[in-house]
């Protein structure tokens, strides 16, 4: 049995409290109706619960989250998966800015477009490798300061530009795959462009298969596009900046 909450007009504080309390008493599945901008849904939750959101959740969805699976049946706003450690967020729409800031694990799958600063300072640690996939386009500073993890941008809706300026500025770890061409003047100066190896194709294929199943994209069509691989030139971009 899932817990169904009508969140119309409800402030985020009681809403999130109801969810936290219900988790303590053993509930595993939630369906939230009439969500309209409530912040911090899933914040800091450590249990592997499932939360379905009908409506547009507010900022910091899944902040400090460590396990739950969240499905958003609409667009979502800024700061999704902020400092998230584990779990899954699936958005059937577009998302706002600074998503995946400092994200250290788990998956964030977006059907449509993403805003500025996607995956900023995303990092990985041992088996924790965060993955962000966006099906549409992304704004400036894609992967800024990226320190680890995997980001895939698909551009399935054919909108232009595919990605904004300063891609991977300050990048010092992780890898980005962009389905399409990225002009050199769009790249940050810490990034280099590579062709995909067989392992790369296998790697993105494993995530994209699951991604396509969620959103009904044709896997073969997605994979048929030409991807650009972006990696940092150095894991120590600022190593020679100082004198002792």
């Amino acid at each position, binding site marked *: 049995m899932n817990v169904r909450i009508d969140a119309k007009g409800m402030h985020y*504080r009681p809403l999130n409290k109801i969810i*936290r309390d219900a988790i303590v008493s053993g509930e595993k599945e939630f369906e939230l109706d009439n969500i309209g901008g409530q912040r*911090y849904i899933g914040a800091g939750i450590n249990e592997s619960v499932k939360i379905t959101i009908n409506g547009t959740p507010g900022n910091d969805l899944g902040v400090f989250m460590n396990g739950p699976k969240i499905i958003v049946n609409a667009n979502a706003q800024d700061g999704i998966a902020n400092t998230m*450690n584990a779990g899954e967020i699936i958005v059937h729409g577009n998302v706002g800015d600074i998503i995946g*800031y400092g994200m250290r694990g788990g998956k964030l799958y977006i059907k449509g477009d993403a805003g500025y600063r996607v995956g900023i300072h995303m990092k990985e*640690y041992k088996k924790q490798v965060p993955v962000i996939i966006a099906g549409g386009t992304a704004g400036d500073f894609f992967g800024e300061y990226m320190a680890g993890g995997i980001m895939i941008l698909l551009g399935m809706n054919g909108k232009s530009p595919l990605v904004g300026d300063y891609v991977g500025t*300050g990048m010092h770890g992780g890898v980005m795959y962009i389905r399409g061409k990225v002009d050199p003047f769009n790249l940050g100066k810490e990034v280099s462009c590579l062709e995909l190896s067989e392992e790369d194709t296998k790697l993105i294929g494993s995530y994209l298969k699951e991604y396509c199943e969620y959103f009904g994209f044709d896997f073969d069509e997605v994979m048929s596009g030409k991807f650009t691989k972006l990696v940092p030139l150095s894991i120590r971009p600022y*190593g020679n900046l100082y*004198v002792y």
Partner: protein
Amino acid sequence: MESQLPAEFAVNVNQEKCRRCKRCVINCSFGAIEFKDKVTPNNKLCVACHRCATLCPENAINITENPLDYKDGYNWTPEIRKNILKQAESGGIILTGMGNPKPYPIYWDHMLIDACQVTNPSIDPLREPMELRTYLGAKPDSLEFDGNVSLKTELAPQVKLDIPIVFAAMSYGAISLNAHKALAMAATRMGTLMNTGEGGLHEDIAPYADRIIVQVASGRFGVTSKYLNRSAAVEIKIGQGAKPGIGGHLPGEKVGEDISKTRMIPVGTDALSPAPHHDIYSIEDLSQLIYAIKEATDYKKPVSVKIAAVHNVAAIASGIVRAGADIVMLDGFRGGTGAAPMVIRDHVGIPIELALAAVDERLRQEGIRNRASILVGGSIRQSADVVKAIALGADACVIGTASLIAMGCRVCQKCYTGNCAWGIATQKPELVRRLNPELAADRLCNLLTAWGHEIQEVLGSLGINAIESLRGSRERLRGVGLNQEALDILGIKHAGIGQ
């Protein structure tokens, strides 16, 4: 290219006293002493950390400033000339450690404390109770009681301090695990707090978590929901007095297995903390992170926001309080650091005394002073500074450099090299081992105990018996040698003026 920089110090070995035990050679972590038939210093490498001189069993080593004279020049000081040489050789930003050593005015030393004479009795702290206890956290605007005189008002979370001095944020990475352990043990024993800094919480100090402030900085290193909940309070680090407005770089060489584990990043990668939090560009954004943390900790932990003291600090602090912070931590421009560009450390920010006075005054004017506690740091050097800070309006003080000195730091300012000979600002196992956490904790406890007694003496002489009675009592301070503007900002009268 062979450096043209002259040696800063001269190591003088009394070869007659020396019995060639080589202890100095083994102990010098900067490689400044070799053994070539006899103890032979390389002055260019000496940083004056005093390790060799302190441990020499024959007392045969003395370190002096290199007596090399420079052509006199008030403007072109030897330091400025040496810095130019260094940069001409390297093209790099000059990195440095510890706090600002420049002779800017120290306002603590221009404030004097009142005492009771004849018309009002002083209190003898040896015979009468003298309370140093205080609580950090938001206080309610008013209190409501029910018929049985029990409190109806729901209080915000509070952290009890048995002494109004907490240890400053210093990350595991900037300082060693043994130093972190010592701080955690001492904080627990003394009923005060230590602060993880932004490097995450090592499992070895997790047992002391209810005496630890955990920090969330722009790099979000080691920040998880578990980390946030295993704490006495959570601090959002916006800025640091030694380097306002800039981020931090922990170089990859220092990111070994253990650091990697607590920061949750791969071994050997640079830990880059960008200058801003990328999700904070306004007071509203700050509020968003404050409440994200409150949601993730079920509103059980006070949330502190740490900022560097800068020109507009009063308005910023007002915003921080309105954003929902329970504690505002102000760090003055003389505050220490493990590594900062010299240009920032020595030239950016404002003194903590003026910042504190301005913030406390502003929050009072706006009627929101009760909504947050004020912690101040940035060169609290002695118990008198604590008393003066509390009289100016602080709830408690934080000590970083003073606590390091208590553990053995000689303030040689080479923290960023990772070669700390005293096992404090280093990650090299053979150096970390030199710091015994138990002994260091004893020394920290001794320091706090001593300062606690001194504060009690001063309170007694002021005729008050609780530190909370002194808070914001600026009438008990007088200025000496300050101009009217400084007196006005500090909100104190000049010495010689009565009530």
